[in-house]
């Protein structure tokens, strides 16, 4: 029985290995300086790259973070402080539900509010859609990280006469900061890979775009379009774009795991010390 469970586990991991191998092999062959610095070449013509898509993703991420990070941080602090009150439980539950919603529905929502009235696609609408997507992600991650701050620290600060705001800013956030930053990066990586909300908000573009009221390219959108095209050069660039995405999420995912593990050891150590004295 144990053998078959181990076998099933290995089978579960196999596709991941296959995907990583395929992407690395096919993606690396299309890497070049031009690939990272140029916009796409016309159909069937070799050369060109995803430079504009990378810049577009960065611009969209910037806009998304302006909305998602502050609101998510505030909500996370609320959830960590007021752990079991009715409002906190409801908000936590709804944040988890929002996290599970199809992102295409959020794209449709953003389209109705931000694209339809204006009459054209825009980077701004894409950025706002991604920002809304980010809020529950950042909120839950922040809550987990802030909860790991030992209660003794918070109580000591309050006992010394710090106001709540000062306790949070100087003690809680400062202690939880590496974890919170990691959580924010994980949320940003997740949002950077989202395609569906951008399909009818940012829409994509073959040009270098700096005006946020215009449609803009984005890396996952570019991969989507290139993958379905009949041209070999574009397909090779799709693999390479996918490799870029996978490298980014792998690096951030690994860093997050290490950071969270060290935070948990810190919290366990502090809590262990407390219970020995008590």
């Amino acid at each position: 029985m144990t053998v078959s469970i181990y076998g099933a586990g290995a089978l579960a991991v196999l596709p991941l290995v296959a995907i990583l191998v395929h992407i690395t092999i096919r993606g690396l062959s299309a890497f070049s300086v031009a690939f990272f610095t140029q916009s796409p070449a016309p159909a069937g013509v070799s050369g060109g790259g995803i430079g504009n898509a990378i810049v577009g993703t960065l611009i969209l991420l910037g806009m998304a973070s302006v909305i998602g990070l502050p609101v998510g941080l505030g909500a996370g602090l609320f959830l960590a402080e007021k752990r079991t009150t009715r409002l906190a439980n409801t908000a936590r539950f709804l944040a988890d539900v929002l996290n599970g919603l199809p992102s295409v529905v959020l794209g449709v929502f953003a389209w109705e509010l931000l694209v339809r009235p204006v009459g054209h696609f825009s980077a701004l609408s894409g950025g706002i859609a991604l920002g809304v997507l980010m809020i529950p992600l950042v909120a839950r991650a922040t809550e987990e990280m802030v909860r790991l701050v030992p209660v003794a620290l918070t109580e000591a600060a309050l006992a010394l006469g710090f106001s709540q705001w000062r306790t949070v800013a100087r003690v809680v956030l400062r202690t939880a900061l590496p974890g919170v930053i990691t959580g924010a990066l994980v949320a940003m990586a997740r949002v950077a890979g989202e395609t569906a909300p951008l399909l009818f908000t940012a829409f994509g573009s073959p040009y270098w775009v700096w005006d946020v009221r215009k449609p803009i390219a984005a890396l996952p959108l570019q991969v989507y379009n290139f993958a379905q095209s009949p041209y070999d050069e574009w397909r090779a660039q799709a693999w390479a774009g996918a490799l870029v995405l996978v490298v980014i999420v792998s690096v951030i995912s690994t860093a997050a795991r290490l950071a969270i593990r060290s935070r948990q050891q810190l919290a366990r150590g502090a809590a262990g010390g407390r219970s020995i004295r008590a």
Partner: protein
Amino acid sequence: MGAHRSRPISDVVYQLCITACALVIPALLVLLSAVIAWAAWPAVQVAGAELVVGVTWDVANNRFGAFPALAGTLLSSMLALVLATPLAMAVAILSSELAPQRVRTALGFFVDLLAAIPSVVYGLWGLLVVVPALRLYVMPFVSDTLQLGGLPMFSGPAYGTSVLAAGVVLAIMILPYIASVSREVLAAVPRSQREAALALGATRWEMIRDAVLPFARSGLVGGIMLGLGRALGETMAVTMVIGNRNTVPTSLFDPAYTVASLLANEFSEASGALHLSALMAVAGVLLITTLLVNALARWLVWRVQHSGART
């Protein structure tokens, strides 16, 4: 201790700010539902029930029957669940019960990575690796070598892009979600249950099967439903491998359509207000379904985690 100091203004502002941020979450959900419902209303008035039971999606003639898309969504998601659940359970059991610590860490790392990979990357791999493999090897093998081509489930020409392709890719995508939730649920089973079974003479596997799994059952069901919720709403990977043919699939080898693919393909080029409204209505159906599935799933998981703590 003396006079009560009134709260500093910074505290009041701070509390207001974080409460407002927390309130954004339910407000977003309400706004989302209201906007979609409002935009879908014209089509609901005109087409009514035909939206969900009608079999013809003919934009030019204002026929908006999304049943093929709904059927494709359900079929591909169910197939994904059937494929993913046993493997995810194995990973969860390994991670929480059986495997030594180093294997658990490695497993957790792999599962996290699987969950982090963007959906469009899965779609790319599915389209350029899985679909040709199905078309060139698996489907001919099943229909010719195994002589199963007569069965309705395996009938039809081997296009490659099919319900089967979507099911396979979706299964890989939802596996980490089911596995990680199941692992947490299994870890929430109290030690007393395990120790009681072992004290009565159970082997390790018997302990898992008879003491741990039944206790965690509703939570495990919740984890599976979470995977279902993800599969129902998955857009990019499915759109790239399912073939995008707006008819009800009768075989696993048939190309099909899902609600999310319908939205992804038609939304940006929608012609006419009624078409857009119909698409909004279809999005509304997807929203309601995933909301219900996710809410029920989260509640089931929450129940096991909190009953375990009390014991």
